[in-house]
């Protein structure tokens, strides 16, 4: 049985919007040129590749099912309130079991000593062996040996997959005139190589983490790698949902203020200046508190942990959106004010076109580039903001997997001796990769849409 949480639905809207934009781009020659510039640039193509890997993981994590339980008495299955996502099912061998407490990456033992009865009366304080991973075969004492073998096997697997993919795509491009971008994608050796590497990393991580805790375990023995992968969805959602929430407001108010002007302009300016003037952390803090009140007063509406956490995530996106739409709104207002004075808009006005159709036909297409650039630019800032908000305890729900929550927990771990560094390291690596490629992507996109960039240069 499928289950849809609010953020899932909105995330699907994001995906649909993305695809319809791609469709739209393919039909618009101007835009197609701009975007092929992005694909032509190495950083652009690479970041699109990496980001789409992240997006696919987030998407897999947004398709959910209810778990089943077999009732022996009534001889039938019944659904529990536990929910797993497609990603959970794919990664089941990784997170199925959990250890007692910390263990370091690739270790076969727990990180702290325990008193264990060796004989009848003799207690010994030793590092206990892990129960589920790290002690699975003959090689467990020779970790490195085993790791090499696993990586070589994954390498072969990856080779096979890539080879078949290459065949399929190449076949298609030979016989059908596939689209310009895809052809470029396949022909470009750089892209194909990076695709190969990413896939190799993914597959060998998967293979390794069936046998080991690649990034160790956390305080209650959960696999840190699994936690970090699950956090991808939170990061991406915060980055995208927020903009989806704010876009309608920003576009609507921005255009109306700029195009219609006068009294409407004054009011809209007043609204966004007021909102913009409040320090956003304080606004977010108060709003999150309000949400908690609502949840506490209506416990029956939130059947399970997931829904509660999900709603909080959704509200966080809404609030972040509310505090960040004002900047875009101001930009759009200025741009539509400029466009209003441009000749062909003036001309269509004299031809008696209605205001709405002028807005749809002339204004919106001409401000879209500002929207795209802002959305892409905001993405990385929002992912970073999540961590900081979680640190102040006004971010996502503590039960949600998120890098912010991981960092928050890692503060205590850093003071342990010997130091528990891997949860922080994991959060750092994952966050860094996502934000880095988002930043690189936004750079290229900005260049692509900037009329001043000489696109033939380089």
């Amino acid at each position: 049985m499928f289950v849809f949480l609010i953020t899932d639905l909105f995330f699907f809207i994001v995906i649909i919007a993305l695809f319809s934009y791609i469709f739209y781009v393919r039909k618009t020659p101007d835009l197609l040129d701009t975007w092929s510039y992005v694909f032509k640039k190495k950083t652009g193509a690479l970041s699109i590749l990496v980001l789409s890997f992240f997006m696919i993981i987030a998407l897999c994590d947004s398709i959910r099912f209810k778990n089943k339980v077999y009732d022996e008495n009534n001889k039938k299955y019944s659904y529990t309130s536990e929910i797993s996502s497609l990603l959970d099912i794919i990664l089941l061998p990784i997170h199925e079991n959990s250890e007692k407490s910390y263990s370091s990456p690739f270790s076969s033992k727990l990180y702290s000593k325990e008193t264990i009865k060796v004989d009848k009366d003799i207690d010994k304080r030793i590092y206990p062996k892990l129960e589920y991973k790290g002690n699975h075969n003959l090689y467990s004492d020779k970790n490195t040996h085993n790791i090499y073998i696993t990586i070589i096997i994954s390498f072969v697997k990856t080779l096979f997959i890539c080879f078949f993919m290459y065949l399929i795509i190449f076949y298609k491009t030979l016989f059908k005139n596939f689209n310009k971008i895809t052809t470029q994608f396949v022909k470009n050796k750089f892209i194909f190589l990076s695709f190969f590497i990413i896939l190799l990393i993914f597959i060998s991580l998967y293979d390794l983490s069936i046998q080991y805790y690649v990034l160790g375990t956390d305080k209650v023995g959960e696999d840190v790698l699994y936690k970090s992968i699950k956090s991808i969805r939170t990061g991406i959602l915060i980055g995208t949902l927020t903009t989806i929430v704010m876009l309608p407001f920003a576009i609507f108010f921005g255009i109306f203020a700029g195009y219609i002007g006068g009294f409407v302009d004054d009011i809209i300016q007043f609204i966004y200046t007021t909102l913009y003037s409040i320090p956003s952390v304080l606004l977010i803090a108060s709003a999150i508190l309000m949400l908690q009140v609502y949840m506490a007063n209506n416990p029956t509406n939130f059947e399970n942990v997931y829904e509660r956490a999900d709603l909080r995530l959704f509200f966080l996106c809404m609030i972040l959106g509310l505090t960040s739409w004002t900047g875009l709104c101001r930009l759009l207002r200025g741009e539509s004010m400029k466009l209003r004075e441009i000749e062909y808009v003036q001309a269509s006005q004299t031809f008696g076109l209605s205001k709405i159709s002028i807005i749809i036909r002339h204004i919106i297409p001409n401000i879209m580039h500002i929207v795209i650039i802002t959305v892409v630019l905001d993405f990385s800032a929002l992912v970073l903001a999540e961590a900081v908000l979680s640190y102040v305890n006004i971010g996502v729900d503590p039960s949600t997997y998120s890098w912010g929550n991981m960092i928050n927990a890692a503060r205590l771990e850093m003071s342990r001796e010997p130091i528990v560094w891997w949860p922080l390291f994991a959060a750092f690596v994952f966050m860094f990769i996502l934000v880095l490629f988002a930043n690189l992507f936004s750079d290229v996109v900005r260049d692509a849409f900037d009329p001043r960039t000489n696109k033939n240069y380089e």
Partner: protein
Amino acid sequence: MIRYILKRLVFIIPILIGVNLLTFALFFVVNSPEEIARLHLGDKRITQEQIFAWNEERGYNNPLFYNSSEKGLNKIQKTIFYEKSVKLFLFDFGVSDSGRDIKYDILQRMWPSLAIAFPSLVVGVLINITFALFFVFFRSTYVDYVGVIICVALMSISSLFYIIGGQYLISKLLHLVPISGYANGYDAIKFLILPVIISVIYGIGSGTRWYRSLFLEEIEKDYVKTAKSKGLSESSVLFNHVFKNALIPILTGVVVILPLLFLGSLIVESFFGIPGLGSYTIDAIQSQDFAIVRAMVFLGTILYIVGLVLTDISYTLVDPRVRLK
């Protein structure tokens, strides 16, 4: 000019009223006074009458907007709205929920905040401009390319990592500065070095890129090309023309954040145990001291708007071409 400033100041008033109404609605919808009282009285053995007394002491027992039990002006003045929100306009922040005078605390805690924020800003701007000029000098060479990549990488690291990492390395492993704390006077320096360095490093990525794009924009302009064609050396063109003309956006960018320096940095201050306004706000959020949060929201808003007005004014002062409507 003066007329313009006056006009801007008049425009501030409705915004402040708007902010005031908004925060009032937020704070008195979130928690009823009774709950605030319970939070602040502690958790062992609380009776209803103590809660009542607490609310009465802080004026939370009044009605929200209109007090029909009073006479004359008091009908409006003896209300939560008047006591808690209107008085903010007179900079009367009142007493915090834990019983301290807020204005006094803000005046005290302002200085440590400034002591971090001001050096961070100045050093940061200087370093960023240096790097940016350096990159621009080597534009479209591998130096520039690698530099920009490094900047993007620096930008992609969360501030939390800089703080956690810096504190661990410099204070814990190398024993170079105290782990946390603060002292007044010159003793403050040893506590401030690390936070300032961290703030500066955190800002290098975005700052350098921003200034670099400013300079590049300027370098494309015709007068620079003319200067170059006259045979001036690259460095003198950079300093004498590009840098000078880019000063306007740099200056205005700095001016807009100047007033906000008072608010301090939330995360850095609480990590390093510096008793500034940033940690004041964080503590208030965490202990749900709404009186303080309200005061800080209002103060933050005022400072932000002051920053905007200052920017406008500095535009006209620096560049006479900009005319104000």
